[in-house]
């Protein structure tokens, strides 16, 4: 069959197999689906309680026994949180800082990981361990010297004061490196043979292939930087520079129990991140199926 390519033959065969998938596999899929539904229900119950509480009147959030239903569901808690706080300003600060942190982290760490994975330079091994060691340092105590350092740079109470200490992420480097190590060498060797510089290889071959890894790292970085409390709390003082966790902490840690407001503020705080996740998770799916050896 001279007109058939090897690839076509393989694809045809696969298609035949898929359509004749044994009953056993179909049953397994159904079983998996049911199991997933059960797990998903268990997983979602605490979240549902959060949402349920946010819409209750404050006086009903501490009734014993706990009830899901209320006769007086309302949006008071949300309105109160929005009115009594500088939520829009905090959203803005959080978004700017988290977005910049995410972008810079992805760029810096993927470049570093590319070098560690693909460029056989001297000192590569030691540098990898030095970078990995960074994950093992307990960050809590670093805050004190870091603050002094930011003071001497004059970056206290600035966006860059929030951003800069968070862009060097050894975890991101590690994740990228592991993904890169899994991609075969043939791809870039073909390109290098064609005369491409390493930078072009990085930019035009690697980055597109690593969409899944980029999406994963971007999501984590965004979530973690968004929820970071202690560093922005220490380095920021002005009301107009506060990020969401810092600002909302005053709602969430006040005397007196105000569960509806706490939950409402939590939902308002998490919404942007949820949207970011939903957008990025499509990227993970669309991440190249297969190892890039498409035919």
């Amino acid at each position, binding site marked *: 069959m001279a007109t058939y390519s090897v690839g076509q033959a393989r694809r045809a065969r696969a298609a035949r197999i898929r359509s004749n998938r044994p009953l056993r596999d179909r049953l397994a899929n159904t079983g998996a689906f049911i199991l997933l539904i059960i797990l998903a229900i268990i997983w979602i119950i605490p979240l549902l309680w959060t949402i349920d509480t946010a819409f209750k009147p*404050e*006086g*009903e959030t*501490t*009734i*014993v026994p706990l009830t899901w239903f209320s006769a007086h569901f309302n949006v008071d808690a949300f309105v109160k949180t929005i009115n*009594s706080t500088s939520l829009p300003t905090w959203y803005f600060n959080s978004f700017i800082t988290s977005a910049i942190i995410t972008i810079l982290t992805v760029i810096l760490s993927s470049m570093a990981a590319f070098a560690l994975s693909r460029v056989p330079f001297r000192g590569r091994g030691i540098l990898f361990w030095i970078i990995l060691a960074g994950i093992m340092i307990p960050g809590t105590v670093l805050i*004190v010297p870091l*603050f*002094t350092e930011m*003071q001497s740079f004059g970056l*206290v109470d600035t966006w860059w004061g929030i951003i800069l200490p968070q862009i060097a992420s050894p975890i991101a480097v590690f994740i990228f490196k592991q993904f890169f190590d899994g991609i075969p060498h043939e791809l870039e060797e073909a390109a290098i043979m064609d005369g491409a510089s390493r930078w072009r290889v990085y930019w035009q071959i690697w980055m597109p292939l690593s969409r899944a890894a980029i999406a994963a790292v971007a999501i984590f970085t965004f979530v973690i930087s968004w929820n970071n409390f*202690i560093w922005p*709390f*220490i380095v920021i*003082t*002005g*009301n107009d520079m506060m990020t969401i966790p*810092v600002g909302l*902490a*005053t*709602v*969430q*840690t*006040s*005397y*007196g*129990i*105000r*569960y509806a407001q706490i939950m409402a503020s939590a939902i308002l705080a998490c919404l942007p991140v949820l949207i970011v996740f939903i957008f990025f998770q499509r990227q993970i799916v669309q991440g190249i199926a297969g190892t890039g050896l498409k035919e």
Partner: protein
Amino acid sequence: MIPEKHGALEELAAKMRAGRISRRAFLERSVALGLSSSAALTLLEACASGGPSASGIPTGTHLVYWNLFGGGDGVRMVQMQDDFQKAHPEINLEAITLAWGEPYYTKLAMAAAGGRPPDVAISHMTRMPPFAQGDLLDPFDLNALAKYDITASDFLAPIWQRGHINGQLYAVPLDTHPFVMYYNTEIAKKAGLLDASGNLLPINGPDAFINALKKAQQVTGGYGLAFAINGDVTNWRVFYSLYSQLGGQVLSPDGKQLVIDDNKALQALSFMDDLTQKSKVAPATIDYGGAIALFASGKCGFFWQGEWEVTTFQTANTPFNMVPFPNIFGGGQCQADSHTFVLPRQASVDPARREASYLFISSLLKDSFVWAHGGHIPAYLPIATSQEYKNLKPQSNYAGVAANVVVDPTAWFSGSGSEFESVVSAPIQASFQGQLTPQQALAQLKASVQKLLNTPSPV
């Protein structure tokens, strides 16, 4: 000039001082109000921005103020801040609310050590000593304070004294917030614990108290009393109140020696053990929120906590009243702390800002009737003794305890939210929950405090 126009002119003058209207606008409007143009010009000279204002503080002075009040307290604090800003437009108040808890003090310490602290800040009275001894605070100038109606006679002697370190005043108290008892009026009535006018009958001694709780328990079918145990400092507050009623001390006045009276401590711990383990009138494994929920829903008759939960139960429409923490052992003490104003140490003091700080503190103290709504006892006696405050129920019911409260022992490691409170609460919790006997709990408590005493002080 007729009064309304006088008022309008005052307002214009204030705006002028705050730099909010131009000279030309001022002239035009004051003439429109009926002032002759020459009089208007004279007034303008006097009010031109940068000149002295009614308070004598230059217009446009910036005042930075840190506090840790969110929630209901936050609302009241904001109101007092607004009252101040309205009365003194010449001062540009920048009030920053930070999260309550440990990070607040870390941040305050680092800011003061690093040289860019706020002009005035809130601090718990019990957290102030290490700050003062660590050179992070400036002492108050008593003469300057007196100019703003803040003198020793405006406060109860014990509270005023507490703000002093080495003879200098470092903290001006805003309030005292004691550990109190809440009770459900309907349950207490059904249990026969109220007198004719609906007040709690006097209960004398530990046995009588347990009996009263048992009666309440019969009414609720659940518990007689609830208070936070799991992971909470309430453990310490209960113990300390009861132990102090017996006349016990924990540390020597210089904060260097452990002076716990074992017998008295065991007496207190045994009574506490009775509550949760023997008579089982109170739940043993409940946390802060759970105890509130129980009381709010009428599942227990009595509730022990700081007074700050008053608005919580008002919101939940629980029928309740508040009284001082029960005097079970006779001394009448209860644990408390105070919120105070402190002056973080400035690298170089700006006299205008320092003056504005004093004015600010004075204004808030005079306005602290607003603050009292949250349950706190105003420290400023002109407010605390006012009829207005006395009419505020149930908040004023326990105001009398202010003179007799006990605060956490003075030591560098002590104070609200400190390591001290954490290491003493843990064995007490274990005793409440039956994992340790009172004797074992006491032994662990003493060992932990001794360990802290042996630790080299970082201040």
